[in-house]
């Protein structure tokens, strides 16, 4: 089974803002397909006039196929149940319902409330943030400008050192690789990035 992910609006927006770091090219090295639910697409399209880079993704969207798949397959029963969970908006509910229907591997979301809410509903769901994506790319040396990417991300979607550390630890654990404290400290040092 190929590695796929369903993406939420906030993460898609964050990745779009990192487009100049060639992040979209790197995504193809991590996943075979990224599904964008209908509601997420609608939310994403709203700010298109303010952020022309969003056109780039929308132009590549293909209905239920291609790398950026505009997916309309949902588990309707799951959707109605998930919609009722506090802390989950409509787009996120569609992402989860879709994740279940297409047996995707991950949900890509930067919404902390959503992550907390969905994991209390089903702890087996794997939610990755943009920080996880950066950490995954870094471990594979697919990106050489990690510092710049993290700086850019911090300016558009602030995060703390702990979140970054968690992302690196999660990614290392998933690969079963051992990362020394020294290496981890160096990778997550806000001082190194010139961040506070």
């Amino acid at each position, binding site marked *: *089974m*190929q*590695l796929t992910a369903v993406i939420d609006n906030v993460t898609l927006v964050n990745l779009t803002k990192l487009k100049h770091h060639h992040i979209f090219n790197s995504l*193809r*090295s*991590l*996943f*075979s397909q990224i599904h964008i639910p209908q509601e997420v697409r609608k939310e994403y399209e709203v700010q298109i006039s303010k952020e022309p880079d969003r056109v780039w993704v929308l132009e590549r969207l293909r209905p239920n196929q291609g790398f950026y798949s505009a997916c309309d397959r949902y588990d309707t029963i799951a959707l109605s149940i998930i919609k009722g969970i506090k802390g989950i908006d409509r787009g996120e509910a569609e992402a989860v319902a879709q994740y279940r229907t297409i047996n995707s591997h991950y949900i890509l979301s930067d919404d902390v409330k959503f992550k907390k809410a969905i994991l209390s509903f089903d702890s087996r769901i794997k939610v990755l943030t943009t920080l996880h994506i950066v950490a995954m790319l870094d*471990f*594979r*040396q*697919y990106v*050489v400008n990690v510092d710049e990417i993290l700086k850019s991300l911090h300016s558009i979607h602030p995060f703390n050192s702990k979140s970054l550390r968690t992302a690196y630890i999660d990614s*290392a*654990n998933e*690969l*079963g*690789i*051992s990362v020394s404290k020294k290496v981890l400290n160096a990778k997550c040092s806000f001082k190194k990035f010139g961040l506070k």
Partner: protein
Amino acid sequence: MGLPSVFISYNPNSDIEQTLAVRLHTIGAVHGFNMLLPDRRGFGSVVSSETRSRILEADFFILFSTSSLSSTVLNEIQIASSKLHEKSKILVIYDITVGKNLAGADNFTEVYINRSSSIEEILNTILTKVKGIQSNGNDQGGFFSVLGPILLTGLGLFALASVLDEPRRPKRRLPKKKNAPAKKAKKAVKKVKANATNSRYR
């Protein structure tokens, strides 16, 4: 029938092999293979039960043996060879400058690469080897026909990783003799500062 499971082993102390194994794992997974890596978290030289079950689950075993082999890797290949008896199912990639650093590995498929060669040269070496195995009819289970292209991509990345690795090598420490005067100088500065402070309070 789904695509086969492939276990990739690497030396725990080799950053370059680890990066390559992780990349190959991802490339394979993206293409639908069930790629498996060893669980190296906190087990030292012991092969964890999780790693053992992953090896036994795998249809193929790939080992990057480009540096001196750790006991962990030796244990892993022993487990693999106890299950996978066909020559084409265990592939060991050696660095030609290091040579065959795995004793008693005659029943495995060997590939030698030269990391100082260009990516194209490395790919040609592997491709020739893979084609040779296919034409001899030793490709049992279609290993190379299915995994070949992915393996080649991985090896391309290996060459790339070795290039990327060059500037990342730790700088050599200066000999102690050269450091000694610096330490002395620091001590001297401290002494001067201390004397100056003391003289202010006198």
